């Protein structure tokens, strides 16, 4: 009887199956509580229990060194936001409004920074602009011990986030509104500021929240590129815990980090809710470039992306290939093969767990909308804080494989959950209504309609999750054992040793790691022989 009555059955046929949905929700919720919330609270408690009491919380602001760490973390994140905004919006405008050869390829290439591990990106920046970088000999000054290397690394990672969001936003701008503005006397420039800019602003703000979040809580880039002066709070927390054993001080810094990233995530989720509006049908058609100015704009767009997003990747491959056969032999060294095996097995286990968690979370979130926000929690708490919290809360499990895999899965599963949730949102309600009226029970409708149509979204989510696991660095540094070295920790180990050959070996290994992350991503995301109809339907 209830089956007939629930309007939600239109959107999601399991909505009526209360107990099943509850089980689906409990799995990811339990995981989040056990591996994220409890460790985060334990972290805060570490500082809260100190003898200094409340005063301990404000101690970083009275200490010049720690105050600089906190302020610089915010400042470099804000500077990155400004840089990606200024560079990204014109690039996005060209991608959204101009049809040119290779545009599709360029849009696909914008995924690259999402797949490249942070450690590899940092190595790429060093290979390009570092002490022995490809471009360093052409520069009249050294960028070492300046903030520019870190800012460049931040832009490499985050420009694509803004460009993708802005391109999508510009494609949603109503053609008729723009036409009305033009017929009412607005020049293209005025029409942009008065019609397009207000329309895309919420999307830009949402993307900038993410950029700020990633930069503020950045670890891998800051560790390698920040140096002693320009490292972030995350690096400081790592140093305090791993090298100085000052857990209380680290806990206080973690508290300030959680407060900032939490506020940022709150702003992001508020903006995201505002953006949840139906897509516009009257899209603006892209124009083929005709004038020299239009071609110049296209070239400028390609040049910006090539210089800021492509160059570090190219530099690292170039340097690795130029390292010579002796250094290339590191690829088949026993340590490397062992690290590769560790990377693959930990990533595979994490991927399985992340997929189960992500599917459960996305399905349950269709029934309880507030669950959606919780899927972003692992993005809010940085990997270093997760690892630190886990160490404090479960000391007897330190360096246990299940804990390591669980931490990997925690960082990876939001990709599966959010991708699947978007896929479910994009599923036209009429498909399920049609299936139900054609005799399919809720479960049959799910199995025959929903599940096949979700495959592209699932594959995409799994691809990002796998790339995250393969490139994981921060958690591995904290929770791993020496015999469980992965490719990322091996790269870091090589880099920590003095000598040119070690540095070159690190570059070669970083190239191999990048190739592995890309291969895993393509293997999962590429629709091998699969029907593209699901993507067509949900596009």
């Amino acid at each position: 009887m209830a089956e007939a009555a629930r309007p939600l059955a239109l959107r999601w046929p399991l909505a009526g199956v209360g107990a099943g949905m509850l089980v689906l929700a409990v799995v990811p919720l339990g995981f989040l509580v056990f591996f994220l919330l409890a460790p985060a609270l334990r972290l805060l408690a570490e500082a809260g229990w100190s003898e200094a009491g409340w005063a301990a919380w404000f101690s970083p602001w009275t200490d010049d060194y720690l105050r600089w760490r906190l302020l610089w973390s915010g400042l470099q994140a804000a500077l990155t936001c400004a840089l990606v905004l200024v560079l990204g919006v014109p690039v996005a405008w060209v991608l959204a409004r101009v049809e040119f050869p290779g545009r599709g390829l360029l849009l696909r290439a914008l995924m690259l920074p999402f797949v490249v591990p942070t450690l590899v990106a940092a190595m790429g920046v060093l290979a390009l602009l570092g002490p022995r970088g490809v471009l360093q000999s052409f520069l009249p000054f050294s960028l070492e011990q300046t903030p520019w290397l870190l800012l460049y690394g931040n832009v490499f990672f985050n420009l694509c986030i803004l460009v993708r969001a802005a391109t999508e936003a510009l494609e949603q701008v109503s053609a008729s509104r723009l036409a009305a503005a033009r017929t009412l006397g607005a020049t293209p420039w005025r029409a942009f500021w008065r019609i397009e800019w207000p329309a895309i602003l919420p999307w830009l703000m949402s993307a900038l929240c993410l950029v700020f979040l990633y930069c503020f809580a950045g670890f891998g880039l800051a560790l390698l590129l920040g140096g002693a002066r320009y490292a972030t709070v995350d690096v400081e927390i790592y140093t305090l815990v791993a090298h100085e054993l000052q857990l209380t001080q680290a806990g206080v810094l973690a508290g300030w980090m959680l407060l900032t990233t939490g506020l940022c995530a709150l702003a992001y989720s508020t903006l995201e809710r505002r953006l949840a509006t139906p897509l516009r049908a009257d899209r603006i058609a892209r124009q083929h470039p005709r004038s020299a100015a239009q071609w110049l704009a296209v070239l400028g767009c390609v040049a910006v992306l090539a210089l800021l997003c492509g160059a570090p990747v190219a530099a690292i491959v170039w340097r690795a290939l130029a390292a010579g056969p002796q250094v290339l032999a590191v690829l088949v060294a026993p340590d490397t093969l062992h690290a590769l095996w560790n990377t693959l097995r930990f990533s595979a286990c994490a991927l399985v767990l992340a997929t189960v968690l992500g599917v459960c979370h996305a399905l349950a979130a269709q029934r309880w909308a507030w669950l959606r926000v919780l899927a972003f929690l692992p993005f809010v708490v940085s990997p270093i804080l997760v690892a630190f919290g886990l160490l404090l809360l479960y000391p007897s499990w330190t360096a246990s494989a299940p804990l390591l895999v669980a931490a990997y899965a925690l960082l990876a599963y939001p990709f599966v959950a959010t991708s699947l949730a978007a896929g479910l949102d994009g599923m036209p309600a009429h498909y399920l209504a049609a299936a139900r009226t054609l005799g399919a029970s809720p479960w049959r409708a799910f199995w025959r309609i929903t599940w096949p149509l979700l495959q592209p979204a699932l594959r995409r989510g799994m691809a990002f999750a796998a790339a995250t696991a393969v490139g994981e660095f921060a958690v591995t540094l904290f929770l791993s054992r020496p015999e469980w070295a992965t490719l990322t920790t091996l790269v870091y180990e090589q880099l920590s040793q003095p000598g040119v050959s070690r540095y070159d070996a690190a570059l070669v290994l970083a190239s191999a790691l990048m190739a592995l992350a890309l291969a895993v991503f393509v293997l999962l995301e590429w629709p091998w022989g699969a029907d593209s109809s699901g993507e067509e339907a949900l596009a």
Partner: protein
Amino acid sequence: MLELRAISKTWAPARGASRSLLRGLDLQVAAGETVTVLGPSGSGKSTLLKIIAGLEAPDAGQVWLDGRDISALPPHRRQCGLLFQDFALFPHLNVQDNVAFGLIEQGMRSAQARNQANALLERFGMQAHALARVWQLSGGEQQRVALARALITAPRMLLLDEPFSALDAALRESLRAEFQQRIAQAGMAVVWVTHDEAEARSVGARGFRLVEGALQGLW
């Protein structure tokens, strides 16, 4: 015979005042009869169809089919066909499998269901497209496939929710005549919802306008 008895439904948005869409609505549609329901957007026409199909529950009232109260039955047990404005063809299935979908849900083996689907597609002049993907078809062809899919299980009632509004005027005219003929052959109770009065008059033996939640007889 399809019978609606005192159907009421209130729409309660998350914000703002609630609004009565249907107020104690009664309707009887005999087997083989087509009744059209006219009304502007937002008047509750689609909600009425969803209630008949079991996709939404009324706040009050019952739905009877052939002398049996089916109000408590889930959609897949109501022997009902539903045609949508946007066709709602399944994009991951080809034309033949779309048409065979309902038969397979009734427990028929896939091979047999496909044979029956092909036979029906042949009668609809669509056999050449049996293995095509649905997005490869024109709008008119897609709606033909949707009708074939709805009719293949021989439902006792057919509900059409503005089936031609996504099509151009010329195609709408020709399809309307074709659909009328095919539906008449099937002998079901038909509720045809539209906002186009000319279309309503040409297809419906009886016509109603949905005004403030109640049906007013037009002809």
